[in-house]
């Protein structure tokens, strides 16, 4: 049974009020991943802000919203979570508030993916290009990532979510690497949803490391140069941690019309969807819009429909 409640002692319904975001500054005040907060707010007489969410049931999956067909759901969705900084600026906040709001939005999307039968969700958390940002922001981001992983580990494990981290780990702090290893180990046998987080990742870097891996195997005499083909490269890419390495749908928020070197090889036939909203505003309605657009597309893979 999908029991997604948090321990009731630490449940604070006020945290889900939008205004509370600005007040949550200090470390240790992170929200818990809770799929049942409407229940909590109803029981306290507070009107739920998300009135369209179905009441908590014991059913494993929520019924899809009107207009979405279960047989046309993408197996693998990739997301570029762009716009946290701009969101914070528009509200007159600091960039790190934007990133916190971004984590909230991500929680919502992970929850929806789990409920709607999407098998893999890849998120672009931190790119190789992002290393140029101010150190204070980078430190905050990596710290936020570490804290979120630690705090969410138990909930994710209970919800049968598997976490994999891809990217160049050489520049990441040791404490983060330790947490990553622990999280990957604990969740490695989970099957409901695979959440792939790209940290220090870029598409070109992935192909480069695959190339190096292949070159090493050629040098060791394991394979011949003539045997190098697309399948081999696919096996060497970091997305080999999943059964479905090719996203069916890529969503980029904040209106930018670029892929920014995220998942190069894997995007060969991916449907791209560019959303105008900034990532913290994306949420359920934006996700439904993206899925509806995806379901209406004709995918031909170079052939002909008829």
């Amino acid at each position, binding site marked *: 049974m999908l029991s997604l409640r948090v321990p009731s002692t630490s449940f604070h319904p006020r945290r889900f009020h939008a205004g509370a975001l600005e007040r949550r500054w200090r470390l240790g005040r992170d929200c818990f991943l809770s799929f049942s907060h409407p229940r909590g707010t109803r029981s306290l007489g507070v009107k739920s802000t998300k009135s369209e969410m179905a009441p908590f049931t014991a059913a494993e999956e929520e019924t899809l919203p009107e207009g979405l067909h279960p047989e046309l759901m993408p197996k693998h969705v990739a997301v570029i979570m762009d716009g946290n900084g701009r969101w914070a600026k528009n509200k007159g906040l600091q960039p790190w508030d934007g990133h916190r709001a971004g984590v909230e939005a991500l929680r919502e999307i992970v929850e929806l993916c789990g409920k709607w039968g999407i098998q893999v969700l890849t998120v672009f958390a931190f790119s190789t290009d992002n290393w140029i940002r101010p150190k204070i922001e980078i430190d905050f981001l990596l710290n936020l990532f570490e804290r979120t992983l630690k705090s969410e580990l138990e909930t994710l494990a209970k919800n049968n979510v598997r976490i994999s981290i891809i990217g160049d780990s050489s520049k990441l702090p040791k404490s983060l690497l330790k947490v990553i290893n622990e999280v990957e180990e604990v969740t490695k046998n989970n099957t409901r949803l695979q959440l792939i987080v790209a940290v220090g990742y870029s598409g070109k*870097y992935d192909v480069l490391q695959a*190339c190096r891996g292949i070159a090493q195997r050629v040098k060791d005499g394991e394979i011949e140069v003539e045997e190098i083909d697309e399948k081999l490269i696919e096996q060497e890419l970091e997305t080999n941690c999943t059964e479905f390495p090719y996203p069916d749908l890529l969503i980029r928020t904040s209106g930018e019309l670029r892929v920014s070197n995220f998942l190069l090889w894997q995007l060969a036939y991916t449907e791209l969807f560019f959303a105008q909203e900034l990532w913290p505003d994306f949420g359920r309605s934006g996700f439904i819009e993206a899925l509806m657009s995806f379901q209406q597309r004709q995918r031909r893979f*170079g052939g002909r429909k008829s």
Partner: protein
Amino acid sequence: MCRRENNDLSGNDVVQSFITGSGSFPTFASLNSQLRILVLSLLPSTISDPKNLGTVLHFIYLSSGEGMGGGIRQLLEQVHRLSRRSLFRVLSMGPLPTHLAFIMDGNRRYAKKRGLEDGSGHKAGFSALMSMLQYCYELGIKYVTVYAFSIDNFRRKPEEVQSLMDLMLEKIKSLLDKESIVHEYGIRVYFIGNLGLLNDQVRAAAEEVMKATAKNSRVVLLVCVAYNSTDEIVQAVKRSCVEKADRDVERIQLVDIEENMQMSVAPEPDILIRSSGETRLSNFLLWQTGNSQLFSPDALWPEIGLRHLVWAILNFQRSHSYLEKKKKQL
């Protein structure tokens, strides 16, 4: 393209004769009302260069002498060219892209929509391509890449593949003609892709064109046939492995792979335009379009026009300063 038939006449001569009424040229008074309006509307743009007016008047002369149909068409073409030139002058006030890439999608749907037979969609697509190339090179864009035929397209019905190959052979050969666009703009043509998958005739024609245009350097056209981006990367990886076989594999860097890519002859595209409204890359230039602006107008490829190009460039100019700042930081 419009050409003067009598090369001895200069534009100024024609203008003079037109105004004074001497010689065998028609005078302003002798033109019908439509042509008078046309000439008057052109006067502002010809202030900087009277030769333009002379050229126009020359064609009025030709059209009144040789029959209105062909002459009027040539006249209108010249008018379009002049107004395009003014538009492009305005556009070049801002930054212009160096490299434009096109995915020419929607030919067959176009034929179906218009109730034409199957092959004519691709023929219409070819004319649209020629127009777009003309606009790009007039605007001063140095590199243009087009996705003509993918390796995946070989999976289509054999008749369709064969008719596409025949069309490609005919059009590749026509590039060698003296009047072709290649000579007009001094285009260097590259054929990018796994050319070994093509039949011998097409491959030979492609290689001939590449050789014949090797000395051109003004502008570059890259035609991707039998191309897949993943295939290009596989070939580059193979070559990198062979090159660095005797050295430490850690020494393989991004530049090593990039050097071995067939598309290394051009910089990365600034804008990728895919017609017919589909928003996907379809295994085209995956490596090179990481930072390209993606633009997907709803028009099918034969319907693509100047307005889509202008719109794409205006959007590019809008985000250009932000992107340049980012590039400098990297």
